[in-house]
């Protein structure tokens, strides 16, 4: 990552040559057509299920129960949306779409912000200080990359319970932060920042805190944005941990609520596909929008750092 600009930031000659070569496409290329067909098939494979969910939410539940999805667009979307947002799925009255959406937001933002702040601080300490126990801290932190939460789920639950953190936001969010992915990425990034920058800043009279806030944090904007997207999606999509920690219905997230939604499809009455599908769409919409709109940062963050 070239943050210290060098004199040669023009496009390299071969790239320009290739671009020129590519623009010259004199005849119809049948190979090109096949490429497009393959890609369209792939795109449909990805897209079709969600279009189907959307279609199903516009027609009456009775009709779906009999015939399933079709190409017909009905008029039930808005009533179903209203039902999904405002009607609770359970007797407590707290599992409304609106409520679960809010809880998902708290989880997504809380996790992403908490993780990034803590990770940046730790990575800064490891990279920019002469620390006696740097090696030990490094290994303590980076060993956590090895084991996902799922393999230590039972004891993690017990400890959270012993600390009295069941059904709290702290108990939901903080244990999820106990893995060093973001710290690792920020460390890699900080190491790639030219040495001279901190040296120049020290000569300019900046101490460690000022250098961090004035220079390193603004410099890491893109990295922070990429991390935020990845972590927001990760936090929002958590399922097992919220299922275990948040048992009060007022704290259910949308992703966690999927289980209730599917159970709603089973009961003796007419399954409420319209509402369920809208809730499912609501559960994927924010992370999908974030990933699509901030695609460039997201892809860069994901691929630059993981290698």
């Amino acid at each position, binding site marked *: 990552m070239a943050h210290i600009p060098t004199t040669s930031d023009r496009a390299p000659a071969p790239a320009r040559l290739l671009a020129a070569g590519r623009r010259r496409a004199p005849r119809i290329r049948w190979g090109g057509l096949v490429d497009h067909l393959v890609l369209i098939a792939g795109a449909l494979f990805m897209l079709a299920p969600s279009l189907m969910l959307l279609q199903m939410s516009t027609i009456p539940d009775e009709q779906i129960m009999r015939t399933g999805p079709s190409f017909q667009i009905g008029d039930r979307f808005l009533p179903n949306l209203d039902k999904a947002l405002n009607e609770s799925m359970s007797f407590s009255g707290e599992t409304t779409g609106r409520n679960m959406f809010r809880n998902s937001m708290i989880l997504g933002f809380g996790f992403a912000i908490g993780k990034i702040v803590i990770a940046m601080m730790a990575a800064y300490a490891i990279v920019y200080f002469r620390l006696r126990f740097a090696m030990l801290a490094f290994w303590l932190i980076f060993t956590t990359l090895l084991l996902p939460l799922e393999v230590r789920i039972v004891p993690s639950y017990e400890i959270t319970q012993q600390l009295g953190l069941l059904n709290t936001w702290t108990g939901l969010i903080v244990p999820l932060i106990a893995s060093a992915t973001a710290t690792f990425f920020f460390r890699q990034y900080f190491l790639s920042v*030219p040495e*001279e*920058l901190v*040296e*120049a*800043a*020290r000569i*300019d009279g900046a101490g460690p805190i000022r250098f961090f806030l004035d220079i390193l944090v603004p410099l890491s904007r893109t990295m922070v944005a990429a991390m935020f997207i990845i972590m927001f999606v990760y936090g929002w999509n958590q399922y097992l941990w919220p299922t275990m920690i948040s048992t009060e219905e007022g704290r259910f997230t949308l992703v966690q609520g999927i289980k209730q939604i599917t159970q709603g499809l089973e009961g003796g009455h007419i399954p409420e596909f319209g509402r369920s599908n809208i809730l499912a769409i609501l559960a994927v919409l924010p992370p999908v929008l974030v990933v699509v709109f901030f695609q460039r940062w997201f892809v860069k963050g994901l691929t630059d750092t993981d290698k």
Partner: protein
Amino acid sequence: MARVALDRVRKVYRNGFEAVKPASFEIADGEFLVLVGPSGCGKSTLLRMVAGLEDITEGSLSINGREVNGVDPAERDIAMVFQNYALYPHMTVRRNIAYGLKNRGMAKDRIAAKVQEAARMLNLTEHLDRKPSQLSGGQRQRVAMGRAIVRDPALFLFDEPLSNLDAKLRNQMRIEVKALQRRLGVTSIYVTHDQVEAMTMADRIIVLNAGRIEQIGTPSEIYHSPASVFVASFMGAPPMNLMRGAIETGAVRLSDGTALMQAPAGRGGAVTLGIRPEDVHVGEGPADFDVALVEELGAHRLLHGEVAGQPFTAHVLKDSPLGPGRHRIGLPAGALSLFDPDTGVRL
């Protein structure tokens, strides 16, 4: 401004590598001192110890008579220009230049005035609100200079500040930097691996080789009386001709026996002979020069070939009629340097 004194300053890196062997020298107030040497010889290490960016393993460094070994870089009253400029990429030129002043708590209007003045001096006034990425290499270099001069430091440190520029711009900036230093009169230490930069800019040069000081002297002294074979071959383009020779029967001789001059008293045996290409008299003299190739440089020509079976280069004027073939040459006694063939030290 500042006097700087190093007393047996030594640097051993944590991996045990001795990058700078004990070095002692002084820099006078307002002097422009150039540290020159091949890449990896310890120039940056030495400069960074003066800046306070690197701990001094042994010895003492003082600025204006005060020992500053343990003093923080910000408190040494220095400014530094880096090879890659180390501009803060997210700040405008204005904020880049002002950052050091702001950290010292200078009043806003004074900062603004100083930035304006520096920008005017460096022709950066129109670019003050740009980011470094929107500037050309030469302009970035100037911003780095601006950041150094607004601080009115007692000591300027430059670490290969022109190495990232293309040849033409480098020549131009060389003159500008030197003129600026003259005008401001600030004591400066300038690190470079480019001997032309060293020769043209320095008041005094220190030649460094593998962590050791080979010679300290004015450009003229370094050029005309190199203290060692290393200095002789490192400074000057083309470098000094170096040949095997001997002191026998009262004369300094080439390896083929040609006598060149009277032997200095109390010396005998093998020596290394050195002579600058432009000091060679081509046309008459005791030695034979077999010219194989003539290199046309416009203003003058270089003749390449062999003398006594060893590579040799001579410098002739542009209208010289000499071409390939055998020519007689003279090597004037006053221009000859003699070195110990084992230690490389000047005799």
